[in-house]
Every structure is written in structure tokens, then in C-alpha cells.
């Protein structure tokens, strides 16, 4: 859907995986921008009806660019800069709640701010 101008890249090329494909992406570009340039469209399907969606605002407001980044679901792709080795995946429907030993799903995955059981929290620690 988008292509990069040759003289305006955000940074040096680094290897990342987008939708299962290894690609070289300018470091510092947002994960959502990288997904659009790589043609990973839709970037998610909705938890309500499974409808395909892709980024709308690119400024952190609309939450349409929710995607899975380095195994963490519900990341706002437009707010996460690309780094070497990043793995970007489409988010299908409702996010999967991470199974954490000794905790219930509610405790592990619950978040405030979105009453919806669907897309919700950004991970506590995106870099692991």
C-alpha cells in the first residue's frame, strides 16, 4: 500500500520478520509503517465480527493498528519503533491471554481502561 522514498528512510536497514517473511526495514520506522510497506494488510481482524482492519490514524489515537509484536498482543503498531530482530504479526480477533503459571487468566490479562474483553492492554514490558 505504501513504498519508501530512497532518500528519506528513518534509519539504517535492519532485519525483521513481518507476517512470517524476513525483510529489511529502516530502524526507527514504526511497526505499523513497516507492516504497511510490507503489505501486511489487514493488520488485524476485529474481536467482534472478525472484520479486517488496518491502521487509520498513525498517531496513537484509533487503536486500529493493534498487532502482535515480539509475541506481545495488542501493541499499538504505530507507537512502536522497529528494531533489529523484531517479529511483527497480524492480530487475529480477540487477543490471546498469556497463560501464566499460578495466575488466572483474569489476573494475568485484565486491564483497566477498556471494558471490552477484546483488545486491551499494552504489555507491561515490551522489551521483555
Amino acid at each position: 500500500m505504501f513504498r519508501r522514498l530512497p532518500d528519506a528512510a528513518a534509519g539504517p536497514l535492519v532485519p525483521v520478520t513481518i507476517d512470517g517473511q524476513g525483510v529489511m526495514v529502516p530502524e526507527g520506522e514504526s511497526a505499523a509503517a513497516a507492516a504497511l510497506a510490507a503489505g501486511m494488510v489487514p493488520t488485524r481482524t476485529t474481536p467482534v465480527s472478525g472484520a479486517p482492519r488496518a491502521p487509520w490514524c498513525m498517531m496513537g489515537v484509533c487503536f486500529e493498528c493493534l498487532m502482535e509484536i515480539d509475541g506481545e498482543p495488542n501493541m499499538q503498531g504505530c507507537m512502536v519503533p522497529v528494531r533489529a530482530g523484531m517479529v511483527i504479526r497480524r492480530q487475529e480477533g480477540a487477543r490471546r491471554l498469556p497463560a501464566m503459571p499460578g495466575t488466572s487468566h483474569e489476573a494475568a490479562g485484565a486491564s483497566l481502561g477498556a471494558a471490552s474483553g477484546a483488545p486491551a492492554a499494552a504489555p507491561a514490558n515490551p522489551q521483555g
Partner: protein
Amino acid sequence: MVSGPGEGHYAKPGLATEEESFDFVVVGSGPAGMAAASEAMRRGLSTLLLDEQPAAGGQIYRGIEAAADKPAHFARLGADYQHGRALATRLRDSGAVLRYGAFVWEITKDRRLTVSREGRSTLVHAGQILLATGALERPVPIPGWTLPGVMTAGAAQILLKTAGQVPAGRAVLAGSGPLLYLLAAQLIEAGAPPVILVETQPADNWMRALPHLPRALRNPALLKKGLGLLKTIRGAGVSRFAGATDLEALAGEDGRVRALSFMRRGRRVEVECDLLLLHEGVIPNMNLALALGCASRWSDTRLAFEPETDEWFQSSVEGVAIAGDGAGIEGAQAAEQQGRIAALGAAMRLGRITRAEAEAEAVPPREALAGWRGARPFLEALYRPADGQRIPSRADVIVCRCEEVTVADIRDAVATGALGPNQAKAFTRCGMGPCQGRMCGPTVTALIGQIRGVPPEEVGYYRLRPPLKPIPLAEIAAMAVASGGERQDAIRDRLPGGG
């Protein structure tokens, strides 16, 4: 935890390390925020600037410092954008503490901010606060606006500024407002011209704009710039279709947008495209101000709720100012002047300068602000969005993108007794998704007003509550642990059903 340089002034001994204090905390690093932080440092206020984005600039000067390192790219983006570089440099040199990737998810009336950054939430106490949260694009709820390949014009501009990306296929620009012309010209400069520009502002807008033209001509630079953009668009052979109504984004077999369909002169026109970029102007991004309880009123000329502010841009909440587009859309140049005035007001309220000093220092920015304001009434009238672009009529149009609530759902809610957005939310889940009503709020208010036949101020807006963005419970719980339990009460108040 890094402490601010001026923590001594407001430091509260005995609190956990996660708390710090500053004389002046600015939320947002667009033109208003950058100018305010620089001005405040000049007045000796310890200043913290917070922004959710990874660098200074806001949306108008998005990625300004990185772009300045790429000469060809920087040149293409034009003089208005380049103006932001000096602001960013001044901010960097000001000595203000700058924190990016920082999201303020709560502010209390006693000026305590809760800030999430890198997965940790901490508390900041502020002597004075400036909300410089800027604008967001008005939703454009046409049929098919949720299809992949339909985005805002602003989104395409952000991709150009920050990633040097341009549309790869056939791009159609549609809507109303100067940003469409600017984006079209920028894409032409970048060698990726749009296929066509479809304009939706009603033809009789001209009649209402004309009386404001003499005042606008007092600052002719702005209008001259607009005419220059139109010349660029014409020169590149990009057609403009004026007077379009009943827009619809059509889906292809792959589920992406395939074409834009619209009515013009009584006939339906269809234009094939790979990318549809919509725009119907911008509105204040007020979520933080509304959640704090700042008083607001409806502007019928700008078709948006706006906070009430005094001559120093102080809101109805003592010690909390709102400047820039977040206080009412007036553009980047005006925002910069407002930021300076707001910082002087903060310094005055903190007793660092006298009222007489503040008044004297505020003369130049106030004069500049008046100059930049001159053209606004003309532009507001000329590009006032058509009702049809703002208030969807077809029953199946999605109003709330997050929860997929349609026009029919909202009509049902009103028919069963919902008088305003908060009841509609309870009935339909509209506004309950992760964007917290930012994408549907203006539409829900307008739609309910239309159905009930009452003005927007009577309909009202969503009642917003912190956290203003989804925050993991674990992050909030970690605050309690780190604070040794002292903040438990405050934290319990934030839990659903708490307090």
C-alpha cells in the same frame, strides 16, 4: 528514577522514589508545548515535558529533527514544516527535562499526574500544568470507512514525515480542508501524486466565508500559500472534483478498499483506488482535559467541543492551562504563541514574575496570535464539513469502530430512551473499546442531536475516566508495591467500582 532539577521547590519528603515534582509540567511536544517549555525555562521554572511519541514535534512537526538530517526529504516537506526545527532546537537547548514515549493516563485536580513509560507508571507533582495535547482528525464515518486501505490524510502525512513513505498505488484524497491540498502538494513533490482530489465542502460555504475574507486578507501570507498549493495540484494535472456528496468506500474481493463512490451533479461517480485518504478537518484532542473535569463549550463555527480558558489559557481547573489546538483549532503558528502566553501565566501564578511583568512579556505573543487568528473565520466557514460527512445517515454505517456499533444501534438506543452518549454507551457499548470514544464521540453526539432535534451542548459528550488508555493491572499493582502501600488508597480509587 531521575529527579527533575527543581524538585526542591515542590519535593515532599518521605514519599517513595517513584514520585517527583516540577514547577511546570507540559503534556505534549507540539508547537504549543515546545514553546511553553522553552519559555518556562527562561523564567526559571523547573520544567518537565511529556509526550507519547518518540520525539518532539507533535503531529504538525512530526519527526522534525530526524527529517532535518535528510536534506532532500526536509526540502520536500515545505517551509511550514521546516519552521518547527527552530522550536525543537530551542526546546533541546532550554534545559527542560524531556521525556518521550510517556503517556499521562491520569491527572488529578491537585495536579498529580500518573505517567506510564516503558511499562512503568510513576507519579509527578506539578506546580502548574499545561495540556498541549493538540488536535486529532475528525472522524469521517462514511460507509466503508473501516476497510483496510481507508485512512486519514493525516496518517499518510505522518508516514511521509516519519518513514519517507508514499502511496504505492492509486491514492484518492477526499474530504474538506487545507490539509488535503497540503498533502496533495507534498505527494506531488515526492513523485507520488494522488489520482484525484474529491472535495466535499458544500458549495454555499463560499457565501458564508466571503464576509470573513477582508479580515483574512490582512495576513495574506496564509491565503497566498493556499493558492500556491492549488497551483501545484493543477500543475501536476491532478483533477479536483468539487461538490461531492454521499461518499462510500467500496470493498474489493480481497476485503480492501477498491474504489470511492460519490454523488456529483446528480450522478454517481466511481473512482478506482488502492488507498483512500479521508479528511474533514481537525478537532481538539480533549480527553485529558475532559477527564480532569475542565469546563468546555460547543463551538458552532468549528463544530467541536472546546475547553473554556482565560486570557492566560488557564482552564476552569486552577493551575491547569490548555493551549494550542487542544484549546480550539487555530493552527501551529497560533499554538506556538499560545504556549508562550500560557507559560508566562504559569510563571505569574507561581509568583516567579509579577502580573505587570507577565502582561508586558505577553504583548508580543498576543499581537502575533491576533495576526494568525485573522484568517481562521474565513477558513472555518469555507471548509466547514458537510453534515453528510459528519453525521452518517445509512443505518449500516459503523459509528464506533472498536465495538462495531452502527447508526441503527444508536437510533435504537435513542428510541429506547438514551438521551446522550453515556446512555448510548451503556446500551450499545459504543465508546467502550480501547480508543475510549476518541473515534466515535463526535459522531455519537452529532447523531443523537440530529435524532432528538437538540443542539450538541444539550446532548453532551462521553464522561471520561482514567486510565485514559488501557494500562495493564500489573503496572498499576506495581505502583502500589513500589510505594510501600502508602498509595494503596489512591490506587484503589482507580479500580472499577472503587472509591
